[in-house]
């Protein structure tokens, strides 16, 4: 096939192009690689990497991990999310099994706050509305959930003092009954109690459970009338 004029001209122009040595060309390229532009170091790590080309055309070696990076990150995130959902549920169920009375914190509140907070928390405490409290404490666990309470009534006229502590079934509360303890029954409520008489004073310690709430009661009186109190509270 004959060469066209255009082809001849292209050949002549191509031969006129001056080709620099490799070292000169590389120095120009390297300068551009090491140059810092706008505070950003221009790197060309890919130019410094070596690749092993395999016969099947695939490119393995240092470039290969990139293929697994995204799936690995996704897998780790997925596991982390699963743990973040499952662990708190598991731990919460373990933590809520039992707690000690000593582990609770308390705050002193007014009688109206005492009644309203118990009502709001739907805490099934016995009806204490007939009493004028000298002290009301509410007890809560570390998460702020109401777990119990304490009230005191000092009646100088009747010469009686009532100290009543109550708590949720998951709270372990200790009390000590004297060896001469008895049981008083009213409305399916069994009250274990012991009374000692010393210095003209009757001191009663009692324990019972009512509607799953535990009660520890200490009662001081100049007369032996604690069963009247039990009827008033649990009747």
């Amino acid at each position: 096939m004959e060469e066209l004029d255009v082809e001849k001209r292209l050949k002549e122009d191509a031969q006129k192009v001056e080709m620099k040595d490799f070292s000169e060309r590389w120095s120009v390229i390297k300068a551009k690689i090491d140059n810092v532009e706008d505070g950003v170091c221009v790197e060309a790590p890919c130019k410094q990497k070596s690749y092993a080309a395999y016969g099947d055309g695939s490119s393995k070696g240092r470039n290969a991990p990139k293929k697994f990076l995204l799936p690995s990150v996704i897998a780790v995130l997925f596991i982390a999310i699963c743990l973040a959902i499952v662990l708190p549920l598991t731990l919460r169920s373990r933590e809520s099994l039992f707690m000690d009375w000593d582990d609770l914190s308390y705050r002193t509140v007014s009688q109206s706050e005492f009644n309203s907070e118990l009502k709001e928390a739907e805490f099934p405490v016995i009806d204490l509305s007939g009493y004028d409290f000298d002290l009301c404490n509410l007890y809560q666990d570390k998460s702020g959930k109401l777990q119990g309470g304490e009230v005191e009534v000092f009646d100088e006229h009747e010469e009686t003092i009532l100290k009543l502590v109550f708590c949720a079934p998951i709270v372990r509360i200790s009390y000590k009954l004297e060896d001469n303890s008895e049981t008083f029954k009213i409305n399916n409520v069994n009250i274990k109690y012991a009374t000692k008489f010393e210095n003209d004073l009757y001191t009663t310690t009692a324990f019972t459970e009512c509607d799953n709430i535990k009660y520890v009661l200490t009662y001081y009186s100049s007369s032996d009338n604690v069963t009247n109190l039990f009827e008033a509270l649990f009747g």
Partner: protein
Amino acid sequence: MKKKALTCLAATAVLMGANMCTGFTFACEKIVPATFCGSGTVTEQSETINYAKKETVEYKIKGEVPDYNMHVNETSCANVAGAVAIGYYDRMCEELIPNYKAYMKIGSNIIYKSQGTESQAVVERLHTLMGTDTIGAGTTFNGFQNGMKAYVAEHGYTYTAQDVGSINIANYKTAVESEKPVAIFLLNYSIWVGNTDSGSSEVIKTERSSVAHVVIGYGYKIDTYYNSSNQVVATRTYLNVASGLITYGKAYLCLDGKSNVERATAITIQ
């Protein structure tokens, strides 16, 4: 990447250095002055005493003392102890806790009210006056004394503290038998938590804490055990204390090497 690693290392080094410094400060404070802090972890212990005869001598201040306590994980044991002493003397010095009666009488019996708003306010005021938590956690011995003096003076009374040693049981007995509560400063302590007594063998259970603490003593119980030849085989001395801890309330503090008393002072407010 290298910079991030270096930054992490530097931060770790700073944190470790801070922890070490804190530890040394607390260690120095343990020597001069000790700070009294409150509760901590406990270890259970027990001992068995076999005997043929046992005698008990005991005494408690009439009406005892109030049973106030610390909130969980607080360092206010000295403040609570001070409030206990103030609650006790409020019977005789009614303006110590203004507009508040800390007890009720039935016949000759005195029953104290539990910790409420008014008594908690005393604890909080003492926290400031005693300089609690200003040098390490807790209160120093001098901080306790200065705070009590200042609080009592604020309310128009005079506070005096008489040294009872660490602990001279004869001086302690004299103090409580004179109806004076005793502030006991402990470097560590053991509390009696129960016993089983068959009449010839007693198993005594105690719980020991290694945390410095302050309690108010208001009585004592001394058990003396004899063998069949009427010789003393053991003596166990307990002090009735308002522990300031919800776990124990009013309890027996064990002596006989089970508690390390740094100092004790009998308190008078008038």
